[in-house]
């Protein structure tokens, strides 16, 4: 039942309302609202009960294994939440004076900037982008600003591998570029020969993540960097996969000029059912002047904001204030808790979990598109055999996994592998959990063979049965409307 369907005209929750005041007569009538908006009229208990019960209809890390590839659904420490929600942090206005009412939060942000530079091997950092895609925007906009600053205005293309995340090409377009796709070779790496053919004076840069979203580490990365750099382009690193390499290899050493990080992945800030995240960018020295503002600096005496006035070449601001500070605080707490040793272990155990899971699934007879490659922090599995033999698709497997109390991996991405799952267990899951996933996959495969109907009509144990997406798109119903009075 929707909250609106519990509403009663005139019901009123006095605990949350200030005292009534005389009407705002000084506002002219033609600027005033006449009809109240469709907000529910419910008691506090009704609202609390409704949203508490709604919450129970979700899968989440706190309740289920959630091996969603490319999303790094690791444990979100409750301590990070508690620290970021301390009254002093929550109550601070973004324009509160830095000197007298901001040194605490700015110290955290400054140290986070430093840590992100260190783990990526880059020279400078801006924390302001509000998610990965905005980090990408900042990165590509800086590449553009760099070319523009050099008067090199002919560069009109950004190269993007076909395995790339959708935000990469979309971002390139938002920055005014044309997108050129680079194919993947049979081993899962970027097709370097194809790359060589398309680079040129029109190439502004390339957007890459390494390991790629195919879950393999591109072994020829230095060659790729060389090719692009020699053609005058810059390299952008999509840091969504940083969890795979933390402490093992740094994007800076691979030759990247700019990196964005998804702290809501690698640094374990919660995804909140759709956000917020934060997508800090780190850059090599040559891109530093172009970083988005504001940033935090320490002038030897105190922390202060760096704004456009002292960064005339900055690509500018990306938000009204300074991005998702509450998210950045959670990332800061996480990073400090891990420290050096903890950070160095992340990639090792994320990779161990992925390789273990891959090996066990392989042993169970599941097919890997790149069977000779190591898994990184994630790996791709293809169900095309199962689809062909039993008529049971990756989607069906995904839905049936839900019945087994496991969130489904990312399905049908990357687009180039048919009927695929992209599986990312993360380092915070135990071996027992991975074993349970293997058992569920094997059980579903047996069901697909013996009783495919149960798989193709899954899920069976959730609050709703399989939903009709086509109907949703055809008969658009995007908001509730009161029943017309009968």
């Amino acid at each position, binding site marked *: 039942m929707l909250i609106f369907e519990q509403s009663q005209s005139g019901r009123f929750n006095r605990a949350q309302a200030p005292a009534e005041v005389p009407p705002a007569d000084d506002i002219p009538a033609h600027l005033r609202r006449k009809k109240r908006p469709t907000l529910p009229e419910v008691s506090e208990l009704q609202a609390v009960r409704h949203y508490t019960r709604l919450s129970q209809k*979700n899968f989440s890390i706190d309740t289920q294994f959630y091996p969603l590839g490319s999303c790094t659904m690791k444990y979100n420490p409750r301590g990070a939440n508690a620290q970021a929600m301390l009254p002093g942090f929550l109550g601070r206005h973004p324009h509160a004076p830095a000197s007298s009412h901001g040194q605490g939060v700015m110290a955290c942000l400054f140290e986070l900037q430093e840590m992100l530079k260190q783990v990526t091997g880059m020279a400078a950092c801006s924390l302001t982008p509000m998610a990965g895609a905005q980090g990408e925007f900042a990165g590509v906009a800086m590449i553009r600003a760099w070319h523009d600053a050099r008067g090199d205005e002919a560069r009109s293309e950004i190269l993007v591998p076909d395995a790339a995340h959708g935000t990469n090409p979309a971002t390139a377009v938002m920055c005014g570029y044309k997108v050129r796709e680079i194919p993947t070779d049979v081993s899962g790496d970027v097709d370097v020969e194809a790359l060589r053919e398309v680079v040129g004076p029109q190439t502004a840069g390339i957007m890459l993540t390494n390991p790629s979203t195919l879950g393999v580490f591109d072994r020829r990365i230095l060659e790729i960097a060389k090719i692009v750099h020699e053609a005058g382009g810059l390299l952008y690193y999509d840091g969504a996969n940083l969890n795979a390499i933390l402490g093992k290899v740094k994007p800076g050493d691979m030759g990247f000029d700019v990196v964005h990080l998804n702290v809501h992945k690698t640094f374990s800030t919660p995804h909140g059912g759709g956000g917020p995240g934060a997508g800090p960018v780190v850059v090599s020295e040559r891109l530093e002047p172009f970083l988005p503002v504001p940033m935090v600096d320490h002038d030897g005496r105190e922390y202060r904001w760096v704004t456009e006035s002292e960064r005339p070449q900055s690509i500018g601001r990306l938000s009204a204030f300074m991005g998702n500070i509450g998210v950045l605080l959670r990332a800061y707490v996480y990073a400090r808790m891990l420290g050096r040793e903890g950070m160095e272990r992340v990639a*090792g155990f994320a990779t161990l979990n992925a390789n273990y899971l891959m090996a066990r699934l392989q042993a169970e007879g599941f097919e890997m598109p790149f069977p000779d490659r190591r898994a990184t922090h994630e790996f791709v599995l293809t169900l095309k055999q199962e689809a062909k033999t039993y008529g049971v698709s990756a989607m069906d497997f995904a839905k049936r996994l839900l019945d087994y109390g496991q969130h489904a991996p990312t399905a049908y991405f990357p687009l180039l592998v048919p009927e695929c799952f992209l599986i990312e267990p993360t380092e915070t899951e135990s071996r027992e959990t991975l074993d349970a996933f293997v058992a569920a996959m094997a059980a579903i495969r047996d069901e697909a063979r013996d009783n495919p109907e149960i798989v193709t009509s899954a899920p069976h144990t959730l609050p709703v049965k399989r939903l009709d997406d086509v109907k949703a798109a055809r008969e658009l119903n995007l908001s509730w409307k009161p029943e017309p009075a009968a």
Partner: protein
Amino acid sequence: MPFIPHTEADVKAMLETVGVDTVEALFDEIPAELRSDGLNELSAGLNEMEIGRLMQERAAEDGLPACFIGAGAYDHHVPAAVWEIVTRGEFYSAYTPYQAEASQGTLQLVYEYQTMIASLNGLDVSNASLYDGASALAEAVLMAVRANRKDKSRRILMPATVHPAYRQTVHTLVRNQGIELVEVPYCTGSGSTLVEALRRHERDTFAALVIPQPNFFGRLEEVDALTDWAHAHGALAIAVVNPVALALLKPPGEWGDKGADIACGEGQPLGAPLASGGPYFGFMACKQAYVRQMPGRVVGKTLDSEGRPGFTLTLQAREQHIRRSKATSNICTNQGLLAAAATIHMALLGPQGLERVAGACHANTGALVERLTQVEGVQRVFEGPVFHEAVLRLPVPVDTVIRALGAQDVLAGYPLAEDYPELENCILVCATEKHGEADIEEYGRHLERILDRNRGPACTKLRPPEGTI
């Protein structure tokens, strides 16, 4: 190292299964010359007790001053239930609801959110949130350029009364696509945008006119006339609104003859704490006709295989993960949890509650302006009705006053001269339902004292009074 559950026995058995001897061996595809020798610059890890203590000290450092700054972020009461519920693990630690059947909690909540936001704006549809108010305006501008079929112009009329940081953000986000923002000056008497100021653009073509309500100065714009002007001249009307103000003010969908086409704004006043500026969320609503041009996620109602209602992400063909380079935006992760908080916040307040909040803000702002203008030399700059905030001119430099009041744990307001050089010695002050009589009186008394001191006979030129600042 925290959060990794592996015992030694686990590691051993797992390596065996994989068929390697060490964890390091799993990285053998990385060229050796690239391998880094660890993260030696990082300090040692802290346990939760230690980091907790550090963070408590830092949070305490930032204090809990009385805050009379608005300028885009508003200090409202947030019911305790809001954050107790949204930080429940099932909301807090879920991903974007890709598996609809396992995400009905989030999905239904977003559907309710869309309903509330659309209705608050008097428009047909809403998306599931954008990053913040400023970037939402940028998306609205891009959307208008795509959506405006009458006019293929890439130019946008942008009044100077729009929040300066919003204008900067829009500039950053749209300029690479060759979109031009044409500034519309404001009337220095009223602090608002006059239709007359648009006259000189009558012959040019524009994709859209942006209309803030209230505007950055807190002043109410003549939204009907501005909207009608836009439509008459082939431009779309983009409203930038404060959602709490909408409880009192005419919703964008009813502006002028046809209503604004797109409305957007900062959602923070609906349940998000100030938190130094984020996370907040941008909201966006529009007429049904433009829904396929809307950026961001959208949730639709549908049926399951047994005919029961359920909710799912829809219109995904607009989005980057399907459309890639042809998407309406690159946005992927949005500000879901904040939208969830806003939904619960609005449910707890209801229409009457939100109206009372808006009324109290309005009344308190009136009282604040009245009290402060009783102080000798303090003047109101613009005539006419305001919401939430107002511009005052001080008889002395603003920075001195801000610093002196800050030392008393009172945040005086937002200084305007940097963004508006013509508004020297001017400050934007704000009150919400949280600022009662006593708080306002305290501000007034402090200001009196500070100005008195700075006006002393020996002191024609201003110097900071010793000791206090």
